[in-house]
């Protein structure tokens, strides 16, 4: 069955430090991969996506993610976090060619230390 795993429920980093949020997926075919961010009391905003091509994708707010097929991973990175990055981050996998259903990870809450 298709699944998405975000192994870290919470991550705390200092402002200015680098960040990596992990995402592993289980899916038989070429996946469509997404990272969304949810700020407190808000809906979800798309950070970046991977459909095909270059496995390193750039997103908004200085985030990037790398698709590694051999590791079934799509980890999100940022070289230097800002206090405004404190939010919850969700990884998702698109399932199927004609089905736009998304399989979601449980989310990782990012806490920024001043």
């Amino acid at each position, binding site marked *: 069955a298709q699944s998405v795993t975000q192994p870290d429920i919470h991550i705390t980093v200092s402002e200015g430090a680098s960040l990596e949020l992990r995402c592993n997926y289980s899916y038989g075919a070429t996946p469509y991969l997404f990272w969304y961010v949810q700020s407190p009391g808000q809906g979800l*905003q798309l950070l970046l996506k991977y459909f095909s091509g270059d496995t390193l994708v750039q997103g908004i707010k200085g985030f990037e993610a790398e698709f590694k097929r051999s590791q079934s991973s799509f980890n999100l990175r940022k070289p230097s976090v800002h206090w405004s990055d404190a939010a919850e981050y969700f990884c998702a996998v698109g399932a199927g060619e004609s089905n*736009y*259903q998304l399989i979601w990870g449980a989310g990782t809450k990012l806490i920024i230390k001043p």
Partner: protein
Amino acid sequence: GAGVSQSPSNKVTEKGKDVELRCDPISGHTALYWYRQSLGQGLEFLIYFQGNSAPDKSGLPSDRFSAERTGGSVSTLTIQRTQQEDSAVYLCASSSGRVAFFGQGTRLTVV
């Protein structure tokens, strides 16, 4: 509209009452999704509409939950005889391809 619009933004209801939550998707988007997000939890899929196809209702937790989408546009999620465990944020999203755009959600509190 410019984005996905959900109303109301907050709803407090008494246990046992029925509630209707509305989602107005981005114009032209053929797919519409409803999710539920309980406090501190991830996204729980509820229902998915795609064009004129029969909706995927596999995520609805009980027969108290139903949803419809009129004219391929606005959708209403109805919860009958609300229970306290229905308290959550209900998120709607729409898409015309693979990228889903989310509304701000409706926070439902059952007292």
